């Protein structure tokens, strides 16, 4: 058989692997010519990151050197571009002349995608793709600044490599968490934490706007919000595009990539393609495993053997020292799937398995990825996991026999098993302490420190008490927030403050939540705790709010809403009343009602009309009355000294001032106030959360009243002489409530738990603490004292409409 001529275009990892297979299996079958535009042969591109970080040298990652090509009789035309392909004459025309072919392989790879921001062509704006880019990054050193756009695999490897060289690195990522294609939010959170610990600054949900330069060289990146990030080098790592220019010019079928069939053959039967330049059944390829599969199939096809390329699930690992993550298969998207989640906060571990029917379909792991390949095997093989489902997440070491009963599992632990990771306390230390007389959780904590830090092992310690003491131990009955956690509300609040925890992902991970992102019971509570304690760092999450607070209106039983504009202190004007009447007509409001809090309620407004009716009320100078919120509702007043012959102080004025200070604030439950101008109490102030009675000598401030399911008179917090003091103690009281109460406890329930004395010490007696509380409230109000109606009517109106209306399409 005469030798056939094989020409390969591109010396990359896929085409290189084809050459290996071919020359191993049939060394004499082909005369091989290799073109490569880069002036070098095949090197292991995925090892560029270790080169960048200094863990490897370029020489160590070369896969095919001159000797290798010589031994395999491959004619190399390195540094020579292919100009044209003449398929009729079966010739590849290079810059230095043509070569005839019988078979041709495209391995042209991909090009990095450069976002066409203004300034993207400045010197110092590079991709992360080849050795030149890597060398450019390696040229930076201590104290220089780099911005990396793109928080995917490649961008983070570039960032970590440069940070290891002492460069100040900022990663700008448009999405809400890092590596969103491979990781879920929980793992993304842990990854961010580890990278930040390496000194890398991460900016999420950051939109790049413009690259700024000076004398033709990059100087800074400007974000959409106006922030400027100075940089000596800007690396774009936002994705790749198959390099199909030559294939297209040659007339091959090209979509997003070069179309190939299962045999890796293009639309021309003598032309094959492998690697990142191909499109197979609509899919593109960027990871190395499928490229190697393609290479093997291409080699077999060339040798006349039957082989077919099949797309498989993939696994990903990040090559950053100290960031141990693994993801495989499909952990998003799809029907009939269930999650198994395991978290170990003290060791920074997160594992999530996604199960469909009786098979594992996806896995995400962070911190401990030792079992990654075992899970990946189960995913690839579609193994039936029904028998080991209960213990699957503990990995292969756990399979075969261990009991699912937690008590016997604890009993079976060896004496040196670590129970409390924070304080390094092992089982025997705790059992010894129990034997020595520590017979409840508090005593074990006091004597051993076990479970005294993050508290996640509390359940384990209690089980140890139960196992050791038997019936002599009574399990405490503290109610956890919900089924997602063993922590109580009080624990969660304390740990959010002390650890500190500033995001939902931080709470889920560090407190060992058992679900992916909480439930309708815990998420609104955690959202409130975070925004109350970290008003600047944490952003309110509308998706963690009940419908009324998310839509800024009260849902009614028929799915319509009620709209209540704010009337400060219960005072209105003829113009406001006209605007309300006009709105009621225009939006066909079926019911108009005067409320108990001295407001007007428009009932029966359609959800899609909300932004429009708000805009109309805004135009008349009115804002949201927050009649729907766990926040300040109303300050009811009487007319006081303005008109009443008995009035002792300006109760209306004080009510308006209080409402203007307090409006917009979120609280654990709703808060209602009233100010009465004299002890006759026409504003019914003595059953409010805060009720003020004006007297000749000043103001009597009462708190913790109730007039709902429970009826309770207010308790006297203090008497003050001036209006300003009345405002100050009210604000301080509400802030103390915001900082300490359990979500959905009204003030009267909270005061009953902590005691009025405790509140008085902080709000009345300790003037420094009062000042701190007022300052903390004011800081929070710098964010929240604004009209949500105006904001929603302006920016979010489309969210109130259906996403699509298929009844219209069908009628056409």
């Amino acid at each position, binding site marked *: 058989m005469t030798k056939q001529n094989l020409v390969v275009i591109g010396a990359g990892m896929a085409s290189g692997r084809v050459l290996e297979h071919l020359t191993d299996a049939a060394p004499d079958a082909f005369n091989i010519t290799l073109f490569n535009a880069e002036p070098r042969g095949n090197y292991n591109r995925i090892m560029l990151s270790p080169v960048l970080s200094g863990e490897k040298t370029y020489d160590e990652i070369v896969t095919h050197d001159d000797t290798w090509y010589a031994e395999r009789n491959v004619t190399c035309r390195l540094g020579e571009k292919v100009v044209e392909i003449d398929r009729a004459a079966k010739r590849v025309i290079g810059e230095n002349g043509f070569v005839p072919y019988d078979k041709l392989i495209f391995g042209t790879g991909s090009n990095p995608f450069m976002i066409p921001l203004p300034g993207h062509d400045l010197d110092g704006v590079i991709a992360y793709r080849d050795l030149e880019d890597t060398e450019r990054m390696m040229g930076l050193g201590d104290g220089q600044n780099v911005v990396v756009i793109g928080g995917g695999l490649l961008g983070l490897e570039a960032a970590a490599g440069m940070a290891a060289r002492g460069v100040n690195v900022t990663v700008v990522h448009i999405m809400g968490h890092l590596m969103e294609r491979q990781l879920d939010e929980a793992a993304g959170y842990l990854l961010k934490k580890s990278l930040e610990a390496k000194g890398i600054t991460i900016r999420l949900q950051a939109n790049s706007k413009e690259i700024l330069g000076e004398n033709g060289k990059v100087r800074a990146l400007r974000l959409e919000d106006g922030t400027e990030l100075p940089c000596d080098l800007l690396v774009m790592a936002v994705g790749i595009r198959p390099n199909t220019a030559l294939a297209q010019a040659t007339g091959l079928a090209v979509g997003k990539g070069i179309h190939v069939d299962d045999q890796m053959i293009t639309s021309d039967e003598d032309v094959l393609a492998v690697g990142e330049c191909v499109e197979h059944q609509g899919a593109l390829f960027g990871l190395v495993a499928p490229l190697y599969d393609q290479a093997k199939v291409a080699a077999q096809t060339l040798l006349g053997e039957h082989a077919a390329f099949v797309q498989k699930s993939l696994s990903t690992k990040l090559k950053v020292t100290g960031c141990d993550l693994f993801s495989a298969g499909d952990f*998003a998207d799809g029907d009939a799937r269930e999650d198994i989640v395991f978290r170990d906060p003290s060791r920074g571990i997160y594992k999530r398995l996604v199960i469909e029917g009786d098979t594992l379909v996806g896995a995400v792991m962070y911190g401990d990825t030792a079992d990654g390949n075992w899970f990946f095997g189960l995913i690839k093989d579609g193994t039936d996991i029904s028998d080991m489902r209960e213990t699957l997440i503990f990995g292969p070491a756990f399979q075969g026999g261990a009991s699912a009963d937690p008590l016997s599992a604890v009993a079976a632990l060896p004496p040196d098993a670590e129970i409390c990771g924070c304080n390094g306390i092992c089982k025997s230390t705790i059992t010894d302490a129990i034997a020595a007389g520590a017979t409840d959780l508090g005593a074990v904590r006091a004597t051993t420190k076990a479970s005294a830090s993050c508290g996640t092992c509390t359940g384990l310690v209690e089980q140890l008490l139960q196992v050791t003491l038997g019936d002599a131990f009574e399990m405490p009955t503290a109610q956890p927030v919900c089924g997602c956690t063993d922590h109580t509300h009080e624990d969660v609040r304390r740990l959010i403050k002390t650890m500190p925890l500033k995001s939902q992902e931080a709470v889920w991970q560090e407190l060992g939540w058992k679900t992916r992102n909480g439930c309708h019971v815990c998420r609104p509570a955690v959202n409130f705790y975070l925004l109350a304690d970290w008003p600047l760092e944490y952003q309110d999450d509308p998706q963690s709010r009940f419908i009324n607070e998310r839509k800024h209106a009260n*849902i009614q039983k028929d799915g319509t809403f009620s709209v209540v504009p704010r009337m400060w202190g219960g005072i209105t004007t003829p113009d406001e009343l006209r605007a309300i009447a006009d709105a009621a007509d225009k939006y066909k409001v079926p019911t108009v009602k005067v409320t108990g809090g001295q407001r007007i309620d428009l009932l029966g407004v359609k959800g899609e009309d909300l932004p429009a009716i708000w805009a109309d009320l805004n135009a008349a100078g009115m804002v949201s009355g927050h009649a729907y919120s766990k926040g300040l509702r109303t300050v009811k007043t009487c007319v006081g000294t303005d008109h009443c012959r008995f009035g002792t102080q300006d109760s209306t004025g004080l009510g308006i001032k209080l409402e203007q200070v307090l409006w917009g604030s979120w609280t654990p439950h709703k808060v209602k106030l009233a100010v009465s101008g004299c002890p006759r109490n026409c504003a019914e102030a003595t059953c409010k959360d805060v009720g003020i009675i004006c007297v000749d000598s000043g103001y009597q401030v009462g708190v913790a009243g109730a007039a709902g399911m429970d009826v309770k008179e207010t308790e006297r917090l203090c008497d003050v002489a001036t209006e300003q003091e009345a405002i100050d103690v009210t604000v301080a009281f509400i802030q103390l409530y915001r900082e300490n109460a359990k979500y959905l406890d009204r003030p009267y329930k909270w005061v009953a738990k902590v005691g009025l004395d405790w509140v008085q010490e902080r709000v009345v007696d300790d003037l420094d603490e009062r000042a701190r509380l007022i300052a903390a409230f004011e800081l929070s109000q710098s964010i929240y004292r604004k009209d949500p109606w105006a904001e929603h009517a302006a920016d979010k109106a*489309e969210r109130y409409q259906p996403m699509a209306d298929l009844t219209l399409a069908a009628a056409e």
Partner: protein
Amino acid sequence: MTWVDIGALDDIPLRGARLVKTELGCVAVFRTDSAEVFAASNTCPHKGGPLVEGIVHGQSVTCPLHNWVFDLNTGAATGEDGRIATYPVRIEDGRVLLDVTQLQARTAA
């Protein structure tokens, strides 16, 4: 299968939902994760609450009226005797596609 493009994935807030009107009533499309969507009837079988307004958590939604919780994989209510219809939905190139086979009026020409 009759797949209809109902809009961009990013038009649905993460851990939120949007409404789609159809000939046979309203369908809620839920986004439970950055690239995970479900579609189901918008109407709670208990008292007709609009599920599109519920809190979305894990792969479930809680009805805003009386806190019935539905597993979006199966449509079954947790701990209650009730179920909502679910519909195939998928993501392609950042668009959300809904299978409307069961949602077209039988008389449609």
